[in-house]
């Protein structure tokens, strides 16, 4: 356990303490205690910047399941550090914001911070794990904590719906990721990412390579809300706004991006990877921005915008894979795509984080997030407005904000696609810049909607629940910090380029980045194609924004019932309906039906196996001879058990059962089993006494109605089937000797090892002593159950119903 391990573990440990802090210090907002941890972690992780800058990595190992090759290996390189800083940095700001957003009187703060800390720890685990199994465990933990946080206001129906949806989709993806991980481990014989990367050349030719690639991508795409799995993210907006800012914009949804980036060195050389990642990214980019424009909920716009921006980063990572096919580093324009991806990842976290917090402030101060009701807040909330302008303009790609820089780099990469001559890009490549440009126009439009609709126009006080005023200063600190970062990164982008971006790019493209590689982000490139594209975006964007009411109708072309959401809802309903009809068919509540199916299955499966494997064998050679005495005993058992079937009175059947039991114990005597005979005699006596005791006290029941003939016939058929199968098995088991008996071991060692001459007893109390102890526990549980049943009286509850 190193300090790095403790750093990842610390949020979990704090999560244990939080409920007590909440109980003990009710007058202090629990968030203040929680805030300390991410700030500490952020300073801890930022110390590593100087190390990773020089290309160094930190690896720490704690053994977990060594026999399976599973160790908790943490591996801190440029990419991991970038994410760790995002998680702790944005985490600190979000927790600070939440202190003012969530009331300490009304909200269940203990739960909220426990969930948030669980998420923080799990997410750190995802980005620092080198072992894929450990990564997967943390991965599922983030899905789980996201589920809990979306459903935080669990009294709301929409929250529960959104939580379930996100869980179903992300856990489905998680399962397929697990499949991919297992395939990878079969191919590479290791769970370690570094070891897989080192043998990526050989993995390419493995037949399982493509299935593993697709499964891993499925996991990444569901997590990062890529089309068509994006539908969970808008519904996840039911979570409290700090959660949306943190999980569903800055960190958790980027876990998929992280996975794609992290496994790029393994997969990226494949054409399938290039196509899947870049096309999925582009479609998501377009669809997200296109859908964002029609939203009326402020957070809904931001949700679709997040989807679209995630698609942007994803498509850049896909394009970056093309770099592997060009050796000349100096001219490698495709590596620039990876640089742009990393840079935009940071920028998105800053501007989208600030915008989410602005949306939260508006919601908090006015009581609504509906842009049709909002308007004219500029005068009332000047600081919030300023932050919103900075965030939204950065998102739209306007100078001098950081979004402008990464957007330019993105457009440049898309234009460069035209020069690609691999993977049939000559024919389809032109789609890339076109889709990117169209999506950017829509991005511009929704960015304007976000900032202009609530803040300009007419103030409609009668539509608002509260009289709006500027938010408390505490709530404004975090968005102001983020907005400052937006400007700082915009004006001085090279603050990041060698300290953060270059090491991260080096982790994604380890073979291409060497010491000569420099990241330099410049503001002015001259009148390049991307600048003209940006100007075009602004001009067309303004025109379309102004004329929005006129072309709004295109959104009605796709009817609601054909949407992906409808597909999800109908699918879920159909699943529930079919599950409940299957359950109604199987779980009739009648024990007879259950037994019938069990017995039928028993007959069919065993009968089929006997026939199919040709297992029935009759070996009369070693049969023991039959004496007269045994014949008599066998006849008693047969007559006794069959007469029970026809016995009219209960007493008769109990006595017949006793007779059969005693005969069985006589058989034990004949078959050289004195212990069994003794036990059976005692137990049989007690059983018969107990039977009589129980039923002596009961009044006679009204005589049973004659059951129908078919009922009896069915029972008889099934019973004869069971009897026949058991007879056949008994004979085959005796005749087939597949391996030597292990009994001789006990006979030889009973006296030597355990000092007992009664071998059966020695087996029970010595060799298999633990089994006997469990047997005693079963008896005690039965005894407790009996005691409870005798004491239990249901009369009290009867009155209620």
């Amino acid at each position, binding site marked *: 356990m190193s300090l790095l391990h403790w750093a990842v573990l610390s949020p979990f440990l704090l999560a244990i303490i939080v409920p007590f802090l909440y109980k003990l210090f009710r007058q202090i907002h629990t968030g203040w205690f929680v805030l300390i941890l991410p700030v500490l972690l952020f300073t801890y992780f930022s110390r590593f910047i100087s190390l990773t800058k020089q290309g160094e990595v930190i690896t720490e190992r704690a053994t977990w399941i060594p026999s399976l090759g599973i160790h908790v290996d943490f591996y801190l390189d440029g990419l991991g550090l970038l994410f760790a800083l995002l998680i702790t940095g944005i985490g600190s700001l979000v927790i600070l914001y939440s202190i003012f957003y969530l009331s300490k009187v009304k909200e269940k703060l203990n739960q909220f911070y426990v969930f948030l800390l669980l998420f923080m720890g799990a997410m750190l685990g995802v980005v620092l794990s080198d072992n894929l199994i450990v990564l997967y465990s943390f991965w599922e933990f983030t899905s789980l904590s996201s589920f809990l946080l979306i459903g935080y206001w669990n009294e709301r129906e929409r929250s529960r719906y959104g939580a379930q949806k996100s869980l179903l989709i992300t856990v489905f993806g998680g399962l397929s990721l697990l499949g991919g991980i297992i395939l990878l481990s079969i191919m590479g014989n290791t769970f370690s990412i570094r070891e897989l990367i080192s043998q990526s050349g050989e993995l390419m030719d493995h037949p399982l390579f493509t299935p593993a690639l697709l499964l891993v991508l499925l996991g990444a795409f569901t997590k990062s809300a890529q089309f068509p799995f994006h539908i969970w993210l808008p519904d996840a907006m039911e979570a409290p706004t700090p959660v949306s800012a943190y999980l569903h914009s800055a960190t958790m949804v980027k876990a998929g991006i992280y996975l794609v980036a992290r496994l790029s060195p393994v997969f990226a050389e494949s054409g399938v990877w290039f196509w899947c990642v870049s096309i999925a990214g582009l479609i998501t980019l377009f669809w997200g921005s296109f859908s964002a424009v029609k939203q009326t909920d402020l957070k809904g716009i931001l949700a679709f915008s997040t989807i679209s921006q995630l698609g942007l980063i994803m498509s850049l990572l896909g394009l970056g894979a093309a770099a592997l096919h060009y050796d000349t580093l100096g001219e490698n324009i495709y590596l620039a795509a990876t640089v742009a991806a990393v840079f935009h990842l940071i920028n998105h976290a800053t501007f989208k984080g600030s915008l989410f917090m602005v949306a939260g402030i508006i919601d908090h101060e006015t009581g609504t997030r509906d842009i049709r009701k909002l308007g004219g807040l500029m005068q009332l909330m000047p600081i919030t407005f300023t932050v919103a302008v900075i965030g939204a303009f950065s998102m739209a790609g306007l100078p001098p904000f950081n979004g402008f820089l990464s957007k330019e780099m993105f457009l440049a990469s898309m234009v460069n696609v035209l020069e690609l001559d691999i993977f049939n890009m000559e024919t389809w490549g032109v789609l890339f810049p076109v889709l990117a440009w169209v999506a950017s126009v829509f991005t511009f439009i929704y960015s304007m909607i976000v900032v202009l609709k609530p803040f300009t126009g007419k103030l409609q006080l009668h539509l608002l629940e509260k009289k709006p005023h500027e938010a408390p200063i505490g709530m404004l600190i975090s968005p102001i910090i983020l907005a400052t970062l937006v400007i700082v990164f915009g004006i001085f982008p090279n603050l990041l380029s060698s300290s953060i971006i270059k090491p991260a790019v080096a982790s994604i493209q380890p073979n291409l980045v060497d010491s000569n590689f420099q990241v330099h982000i410049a503001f002015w490139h001259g009148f390049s194609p991307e600048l003209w594209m940006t100007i075009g975006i602004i001009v067309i964007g303004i025109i379309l924004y102004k004329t929005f009411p006129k072309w709004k109708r295109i959104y009605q072309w796709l009817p609601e019932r054909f949407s992906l959401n409808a597909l999800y809802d109908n699918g879920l309903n159909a699943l529930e309906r079919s599950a409940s009809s299957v359950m109604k068919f199987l779980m009739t509540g*009648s024990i*007879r039906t259950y*037994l*019938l199916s069990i017995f039928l299955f028993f007959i069919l499966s065993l009968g089929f196996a006997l026939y199919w494997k040709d297992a029935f064998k009759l070996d009369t050679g070693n*049969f*023991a*001879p*039959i004496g007269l005495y045994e014949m008599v005993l*066998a006849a008693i*058992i*047969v007559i006794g*058990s069959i007469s029970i*079937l026809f016995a009219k009175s209960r007493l008769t*059947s*109990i006595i017949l059962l006793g007779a059969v039991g005693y005969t*069985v114990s006589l058989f034990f005597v*004949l*078959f*050289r089993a004195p*212990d*069994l005979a003794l036990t*059976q005699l005692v*137990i049989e006596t007690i*059983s018969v006494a*107990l039977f009589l005791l*129980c*039923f002596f*006290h*009961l009044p006679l*029941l009204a005589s*049973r109605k004659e059951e129908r003939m078919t009922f009896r016939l*069915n*029972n008889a058929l099934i*019973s*004869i089937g069971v*009897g026949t199968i*058991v*007879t056949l098995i*008994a*004979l085959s*088991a*005796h005749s087939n000797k597949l391996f030597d008996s292990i*009994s*001789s071991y*006990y*006979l030889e060692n009973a*006296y030597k090892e355990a000092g007992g*001459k*009664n*071998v059966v007893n020695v*087996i*029970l109390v010595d060799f*298999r002593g633990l089994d006997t102890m469990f*047997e005693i526990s079963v*008896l005690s549980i*039965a005894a407790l159950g*009996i005691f409870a049943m*005798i004491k239990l009286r249901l009369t009290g*509850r*009867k009155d209620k119903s």
Partner: protein
Amino acid sequence: MELLMAIVIGILFMSATYLMLSKSILRIIIGTGLLSHGAHLLILTMGGLKGGSVPLLSDKVASYVDYVDPLPQALILTAIVISFGVTSFLLVLAYRTYQELGTDDMEEMRGTEANE
């Protein structure tokens, strides 16, 4: 002998199954009792019958091969005790069910957990 025992076991299982499929809870319990007798004899028969002397070590027996197999006996001993536990539990369950619901018919008991 094994053939005879196999048939006896088959008949025990058959009767047990028939009883367990009936509606009366008492008959079901008797069925489980018969079923455990059948299972015990089945285990014993699988190991081979009358193969030697009682598995009590003594100097008179020349070789370990001359004892009967002790392992099935140990298994059955455990099984007898467990099946007694199950039978007595079921019996008391049936007794209390009758006291509370006034019936011993499984079909009539259906759905009673919903409106208890």
